[in-house]
């Protein structure tokens, strides 16, 4: 228990991941859902960095850099869409974003 192995980081990562998933499933404010997605990405990053340290291999950190870049892009475009949607619908409730349904 006192020795911290990558498995501990994996459990932490899984737990944070599931917190993010629950946020996505439960919350109705789309901005918070986006933040939950950021949590999920962070969970993945933790895993990558932990294993990078364990394996003494830099590729994990390289992937973290790419994940952050993608997260930045996702946040920019996603929030742009939210702003545009809010401008038209005056809402950020995800339940009301069902225009494409049959």
């Amino acid at each position, binding site marked *: 228990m006192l020795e911290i192995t990558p498995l501990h980081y994996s459990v932490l990562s899984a737990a944070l991941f599931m917190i993010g998933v629950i946020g996505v499933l439960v919350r109705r404010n789309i901005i918070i859902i986006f933040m939950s997605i950021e*949590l999920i990405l962070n969970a993945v990053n933790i895993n990558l*960095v932990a294993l990078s340290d364990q394996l003494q291999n830099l590729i994990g950190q*390289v992937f973290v850099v790419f994940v952050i870049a993608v997260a*930045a892009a996702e946040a920019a475009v996603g929030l742009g869409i939210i702003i545009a949607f809010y401008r038209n619908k005056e809402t950020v409730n995800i*339940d009301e974003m069902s225009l494409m349904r049959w």
Partner: protein
Amino acid sequence: MEAFVFYLLATLILGLGIMVITARSAVHSVLFLVLNFLLVAILYVTLSAQFVAVIQVLVYAGGIVVLYLFVVMLVSLKKAPELRSDSRRVARTGLLLAGAVLAELIAIVWYTSANGSAPPAQAASDFPPRLAGDAMLNTERLGWVLYTEYLIPFEVASMLLLVAMIGAIVLAKKNL
């Protein structure tokens, strides 16, 4: 000491994560998210990934979350989204299912750990950019790998960011 730091950080990270998804106010969510990210950055430091830690703070905390904060403040809500609900929601089931998956994952980890098949401390990786004990070289090595081995993905990522920037401007601006 190491275990103490890890458990402290893990507890804080998970706790802040839960607060992010349970906070009533979106602004509070953002605040907790920032703190969560800062703590994750500290976790990275303990894993001797200083560059990634700094990037985490600079990009996530200093950039992306500021963006969220802006949007939260711009989208001034007349009625909270949580007040209206769709009957087809699956929130409760989702909660249970997520818990089940988490339990399974932990079970897998536990099982793996119990069978002693944990990955070796020194993996037989011959890939050149191995982390040396000297932390001074972390940033340089990362830079080296990014600009040689991963040059094309790196450039693609930069193009992705450019496209995302233009897309965000087009989406958010009222009249171009």
